């Protein structure tokens, strides 16, 4: 940005802007950047929902995208653009953006490691927590359900290149996605491993998984698991 060429000028400007907003809105979800010709400035279209560094915002339905594998984020951006993943606000925003640019955006947010925002901890019965913990850490062999961590990694940071981290995702989002998978509204590349899993989950299972995930304290500064260490229990199209 030309008239903010000197960083100290920018600082004064930001200082002038933030006091007006700080009372009501988290400043990390307000447009702000240092250099006009930067990726940071170019992704300002994302920040009111996903936060300046992709950490997520107060609205529970907007997921944290920071630190998720770049391949996963790229696949989602392509799917939103092509309409194979359906969410009108996102479909509209990325409708006319070319592949290399979406890749750049994905890599930008994959490289971010902002602190996790304080989670509202859902009040759950001990039985629900136990069921959630079982599904996340051990799965349910009787239903042919592998553990979440078998693919999403033990620290819940996901696996390169295409398996997203679950750390820091809030129940509204997790329940929404698993339910959409179950009813066939969300799909991944074939073979769609998540579809097989969602088909085996009851609504109660979904609530338990989402609730248990929200109770976890995410590992700080952790990265997704490299793909060569993980053998998937179900074949996943996004891991080829």
């Amino acid at each position, binding site marked *: *940005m*030309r*008239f903010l060429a000197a960083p100290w000028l920018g600082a004064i400007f930001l200082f002038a*802007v933030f006091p*007006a*907003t700080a009372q009501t*809105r988290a400043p990390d*979800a*307000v*447009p*702000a*950047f240092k250099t*006009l*010709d930067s990726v940071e*400035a*170019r*992704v*300002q*279209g*994302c*920040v*009111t*929902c996903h936060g300046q560094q992709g950490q997520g915002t107060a*609205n529970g339905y907007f997921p944290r995208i920071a630190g998720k594998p770049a391949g996963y984020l790229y696949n989602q951006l392509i799917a939103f653009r*092509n*309409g*194979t993943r359906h969410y*009108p*606000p996102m*479909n*509209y*925003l*990325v*409708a*006319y*953006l*070319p592949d*290399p*640019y979406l890749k*750049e955006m994905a890599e930008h947010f994959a490289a971010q490691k902002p602190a996790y925002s304080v989670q509202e901890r859902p009040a759950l019965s001990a039985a629900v927590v136990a069921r959630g913990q079982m599904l996340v850490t051990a799965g349910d062999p009787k239903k042919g359900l592998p553990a979440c961590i078998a693919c999403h990694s033990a620290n819940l940071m996901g696996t390169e290149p295409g398996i997203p981290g679950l750390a820091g995702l809030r129940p509204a989002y997790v329940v929404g996605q698993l339910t959409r998978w179950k009813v066939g509204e969300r799909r991944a590349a074939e073979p769609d491993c998540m579809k097989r899993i969602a088909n085996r989950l009851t609504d109660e299972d979904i609530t338990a998984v989402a609730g248990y995930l929200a109770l976890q304290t995410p590992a700080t500064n952790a990265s997704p698991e490299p793909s060569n260490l993980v053998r998937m229990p179900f074949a996943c199209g996004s891991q080829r």
Partner: protein
Amino acid sequence: MRKSALIALTAGTLAVAAAGVYYFLRPGMLPQNNATPQLSASTQLINKGEYLARVGDCIACHTQPNGVPFAGGRAMVTPFGALYVPNITPDDETGMGLWTSDEFYRTMHSGISRKGELLYPAMPYPQYTQVTREDSDAIYAYLMSIPPVKQKNREHELGFPYNKRDILVGWRTLYFKEGEFKPDPKQSMEWNRGAYLVKGLGHCAMCHTAVNALGGSSEAKAFEGGMIPNQNWYAPSLTSNREAGLGNWTIREITDLLQSGVSHRGTVYGPMAEVVFNSLQYMTDEDAKAMAVYLKALPQKDNSPPPTSKARLISPETMELGRKVYVAQCAMCHSEDGRGQPPAYPPLAGNQSITMETPVNSIRMVLNGGYPPGTKKNPRPHGMPPFSHILNDEEVAAVTTYIRVAWGNTGTPVNAKQVNDLRTLLPE
């Protein structure tokens, strides 16, 4: 001794001679041919047709979202029901494989299908009729050259009486004037080329001229702007300096907007972003300039008087709320004085698309944000985030009002009801 010396001398001479011969006759690199390879006539024709098909933006309607290009199937939702756009790949059974160039020209020029049916004017034949036979043949050659796709056309779903194509006879009498483009000898070659592209293949009038309840538009109102049916975006007037009239834009600003999607005066979003993405970014610099010359020269006529000061009356509280929201959310990119940081972030001060009579586009931008298209000349556009989840109806109305009247802008205030009506629509 002497004999062996002679032999040595001869051998030496021969060796030197051989080396000389080799030096002068060595193969070396093949001489470079810097002339551009001459393309065959049919290749040139197909290349030209591909270019013209892009100018005509055939792909936008004749391709289903995420579908095979030109294989059709896309639903065109109209106030009269849904039309399903046909397959124009050269498949013999389901596409245009058996069409002749005469039949193709009749469709483009007269809006009559191969079987002799009258076409619904969702196909822009009222504009394509201006296309020359030569250009129509080039597009035909290109379409015959693309891979055939077997995909059956879907029947239209129109309510009575619109499902009767006979009613189109009446519609055509009222709104269809057949005829190729006739150059105006009083104007420059460049102006004429621009007029041909804007009025013909570009089919700009399809959105930028108001459409009446019968889905018709009158020539007297050409380029005066209109709501795009079923999309709820307003296509601004190209003839009014109070809207998107380009009279006081430079040629460079117009070509930038058309080719790259951004300019120092404004940026394209929504349906126009799609047009730039699929079509205009591929225009040659010469054609873009010709279009700009024609658009800039369109006669400017303001049909409505500027708003009265009473219509522009705003309560101080609204203005203050709008200013607060602006400073907190918008000023970072558009700057406190509304000058923006063009072309990355468009100016709001003096921006006609913000002050024009209908605030629909501005409200939609505040609610849903938007990215301009990624184009050859601007592959990594800056974008605007949505604010629908952050600002309530009063705040959106106040900030939209603020940008419509601040910095000497001449717009009118917006109320919360107008915002709420648009909030319920899905972004597209």
